[in-house]
């Protein structure tokens, strides 16, 4: 009994993976990213953690988009991906410049803005 999947048929699958699980995954990922950002000293690893946090947000967008049957969440995901790409490009460029200029990318050694 093949049915054309439209409308309410989504509800079936929601039972398979409930919204709360996806949100939980998103929260866990975000927490991992945050803690990683706070504890890792390498700028590259911090950048990776930022990517993790962004993608945690993306998962939450998608989950809610499916839950509300709306495309707005998808649009935001694309925006976030674009921003993340730009952020990674700029961030990596900064890190390269830092490595050349200061000879290190350990953020605890880069403290010349200390007041």
């Amino acid at each position, binding site marked *: 009994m093949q049915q054309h999947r439209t409308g309410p048929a989504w509800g079936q699958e929601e039972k398979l993976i409930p919204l709360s699980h996806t949100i939980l995954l998103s929260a866990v990922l975000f927490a991992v990213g*945050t803690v990683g*950002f*706070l*504890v890792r000293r390498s700028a590259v690893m911090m950048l990776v953690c930022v990517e993790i946090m962004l993608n945690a947000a993306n998962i939450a967008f998608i989950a809610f988009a499916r839950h509300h049957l709306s495309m707005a969440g998808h649009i935001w995901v694309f925006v976030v991906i674009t921003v993340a790409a730009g952020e990674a490009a700029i961030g990596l460029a900064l890190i390269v410049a830092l490595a050349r200029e200061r000879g290190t990318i350990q*953020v*605890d050694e*880069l*403290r*010349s*803005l*200390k*007041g």
Partner: protein
Amino acid sequence: MFRVWAIPLIPLLGFVYIGLLSRRLSRRAAAIVGCSTVALSFLVSLEGALQLLRGEEALTATFYTWASLGDTLVRLDYRLDALSGSMALIVSGVGFLIHLYSVGYMHGDRGFNRYFAFLNLFIFFMLTLVLSDNLLLTFVGWEGVGLCSYLLIGFWYEKSDPPPAAVKAFVVNRIGDFGFLTAMVLLLAQVGTLSISELLQSAPGAFEAWPVGALAVGLLLFLAATGKSAQVPLYVWLPDAMAGPTPVSALIHAATMVTAGVYLMARFRPILELQPQVLEVICAVGAVTALLAALIALAQRDIKRVLAYSTVSQLGYMFMGVAAGGGVAGMFHLTTHAFFKALLFLGAGSVIHAMGGEQDITKMGGLRSKTPITFWTCLVGALALAGLFPTAGFYSKDLILADVLHFGEWGRILFAMGVLTAGLTAFYTARWLMLIFFGEYRSPHHHPHESPAVMTVPLVLLAIFSFGAGWGEHAYAHFVGRVLEPPEGHVPGQVIAWASGAGIVGLLAGFLRYRSLVPGPGPAKGLARVSERKFWVDEIYDALIVRPYQFLSKVIASWVDGGLIDTALVNGSGALVRAAGRIVRPLQNGQIQVYTLAMMVGLVAALGWMLWS
């Protein structure tokens, strides 16, 4: 075409020329320009005076309109009448002789050109002061001569004495200037004009309803005069002013500038007369000054200091003469005094020149044969100062005393003070002469020599005037009588007897006492010490005014400025910001992850607040 403003303008051009080219101009050129401009001024004044004699009442000229304040026009008006004309003649005439003398006296001084520039500037301001017909312009001249006096007292600024003396002269004069300014403001407010000729005409009407105002104006003008003309209580600057070059003492601090106050009184007689008390105050202060200064002059040892106190004393006479009677007597004494006091100062300069800089008269002596021209001219000057017949001083002094005798209730007391002063004057004059020119030559070093002709010629000319000017008494009284009220009748024989008697007794006493006696070194004893220490007036002023003022300055400097402003306000606000910075500075530790942590904590707190409230 006669232009009155040319008289002061010519010396100004001389000042500008010498002053601007000071470094490049040769001394010879500076001397020629300096002397000839003053001579030219004298000739123009003479021409003006001749026109007056031909019947003109006054020559006036407006240089330009300085400012118009509403209805009040401030115009640079110059006016040459009998009174200002005779002053202009004295200023430029005596001024010229002293310029000439200075060429010899200042010979070899490093500041020769600067000296002549200042001297020309002084003549300009002095002529502006006497010829101005606008009170504000008079004030410009008044302040200008004060400035030149300051510059020339402090002319040898590398030495230790002149700069403080110059500052003292300036500061003491400032008190008098306060009086001048206040009187000017009162007159402007009440009469509504600053033009002197208009003021003299309309002031009596304007002050009719406000007699206290007239009293105030009169006393304030007199306050101005006490500053400039060195009267009690503001005379203390004049003796110290002798720190300047001797010709400057002769020109500024004896013959011309210090008589500006007397001239001011004579000029404003119609306003002073509105309240007779003003004239009484002037006459009394003049008498007190004359007596006090004569007493101080008795025991001074500095050749110029004796003359300085005698100037103060004679200025007191002039004030008596200008207040009592019609004022002509005071102006006539001013004229004769200009001759003989300039002569005495220049003679003193010649003596100092001969002695190689020595100024202590107890260390001189016997200069009669060594500097004969100086001696004979000084003798004439001294006799004129003592008021002996037939020198000029005799006539002018008697004229004053005759006026004083019949002046008000206190006339007899003031007359007695005047006669006593005449005796004392003769006494210290004799002492001065004896110690310098008679007896043994007491200085161990240096061979005195007569001064060059450029110095002795002015001495001789001034001696001639000091001797003969008195004979022009009636002509002068008639001439100046056009402006002031001419004296009536002749000097009574009783006055002549008293004044001349006192003079002769004083002279004889002085000659006899100092014939062989020379005051030894060290402080004098008894009453002489009171005179030598100048009645401790400087010390009293020091204790009453200078020290409290300095104390107040120190308190304000250390507590108000140092404590309140510097420590509390300026450094306090700095310290406050610094302390606040020290507290919050650890937040900015440069660790990006600490900042992030703070953001996270803040974010969580904000979310928590939103969710649970």
